[in-house]
């Protein structure tokens, strides 16, 4: 899921300066799991904005804020509130914020920073293991991604910064290459560790990414 974290309230208030009426949008998926923009956080944000003298004209927690049709439907249903708002504060990842952008021409303010695609280790503990590089290579690495989990994203073994099996960039994090080595060793696949890998094909996805699955569906149907 997309891991996000709320921006400091001072930054939010600064961005909303001069705008009296605010519409708050949350997200029922990732931002709820990360306690960034679920029902509770949206209610808390409403109270804080009101404390700061703002009028909150409406709050909505979208099923998924990144679903643009869903977002447009919400704004159609809350037409009056949407029309009366000076600004929209979105408590979700940047994808959700831009979904709101598609649904209004008014000031849209992100209320959170999007951090990474994260695995949920346990409640409120998240770790980045995939960086959506466009071409999955982890079969070559014991299903442990060096592109993401090595601070340098290098593909042919550890750098000189391995320190007691930890990463020199952050001693709380395991060196991905030690994990990969241990995994491949346990699978008796160290011969594969010796494969020299070329650099990533960074054009595997042309950015910004876009896929129109309808064409593929049409082909299947035909």
């Amino acid at each position, binding site marked *: 899921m997309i891991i996000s974290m709320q921006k400091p309230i001072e930054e939010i208030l600064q961005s909303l300066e001069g705008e009296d009426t605010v519409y708050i949008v949350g997200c029922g998926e990732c931002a709820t799991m990360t306690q960034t923009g679920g029902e509770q956080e949206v209610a808390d944000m409403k109270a804080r904005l009101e404390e700061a003298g703002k009028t909150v004209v409406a709050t909505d927690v979208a099923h998924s804020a990144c679903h643009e049709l869903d977002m447009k439907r919400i704004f159609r249903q809350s037409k009056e509130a949407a029309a009366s708002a000076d600004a929209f504060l979105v408590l979700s990842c940047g994808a959700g914020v831009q979904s709101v952008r598609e649904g209004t021409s008014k000031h849209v303010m992100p209320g959170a920073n999007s951090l990474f695609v994260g695995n949920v280790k346990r409640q409120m503990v998240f770790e980045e293991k995939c960086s959506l590089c466009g071409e999955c290579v982890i079969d070559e690495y014991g299903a442990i991604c060096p592109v993401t989990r090595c601070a340098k994203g290098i593909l042919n*073994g550890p750098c*000189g910064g391995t320190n007691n*099996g930890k990463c*020199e960039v952050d001693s709380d994090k395991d060196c991905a290459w030690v994990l990969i080595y241990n995994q491949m060793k346990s699978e008796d696949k160290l011969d594969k560790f010796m494969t020299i*890998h*070329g650099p990533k094909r960074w054009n595997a996805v042309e950015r910004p990414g876009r896929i129109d699955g309808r064409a593929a569906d049409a082909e299947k149907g035909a």
Partner: protein
Amino acid sequence: MGTYREACESGKFVVSGEIGPPKGTSVDTMLHHIDLLKDMVDGLNVTDNQSAVMRLGSMAVSHEVVSRGGDAIYQMTCRDRNRLALQNDLLSAHFLGLRNVLTLTGDHVSVGDHKDAKEVYDFESVQLIQCIKRMNEGFDWAGNELEGGTDFYIGAVVTPESDPIAPQKLKFEKKVAAGAQFFQTQAVYDMDNFQRFMEYARGVTEGTDVKMMAGLVVLTSVGMAKYMNKFVPGVFVPDELLEEMGSVPKEDAVKKGMEICARHIRFCIDNKICDGVHVMAIGKEEIVPEILELAGLI
């Protein structure tokens, strides 16, 4: 003076020093160090934004070393440039007369002085070695034929005290397989450990012309030694050296460090441990001639 490559290929015990370009335009001390060392060593490494700290460029200073009659080992990290820029710089370096390249992945930007920068690592060290090998064969990375290929002597690094060592060894073997022709190690202080590492490395490079140089960083105080043990991954100063450094008054510490360095050079020569040494005095290059003298090299 001959070239670094000629020295390596001649089978003699090879000695290189290191020049760290300054942060700024005041180059007098650096030029003094180049002039002092250029005829005393077989080559001078020139570091590339070392420790991810922005400095005067490695290519320009390497060129200066060659212009002044020495030979330069142009250090190149993969941190700051993508594959187009790396190859562009390699062609430029070749044009300027540089012929030795030391390939490094490069310290992460988070340890340097521009922590907000985007690190690149489009290539890493093994891929950079492969790329230079291809350019030597007359092709760029994308497979296009070059109008004139390069003629680089390809260097690489290895960390004998890496913890754990097993994956580091495999990376070393990959660098050999990719085409590295000489290695300079990360700083080593425990000569028994280094001897054991070299027995392994000799096994890997057997039947090749790959040359192995011990990386020796001169200790200048007990504090420095302790700092490296604590904060520099892959560097280990054993207790007996800490004691030895501590056994002399503070003002004699540099001298003691020079003695230790000279003794380690001698150990490598007398026991035929490796093919040469790379001596790093980290800004105190004026002490290098005396170390080489103590080791009986000049």
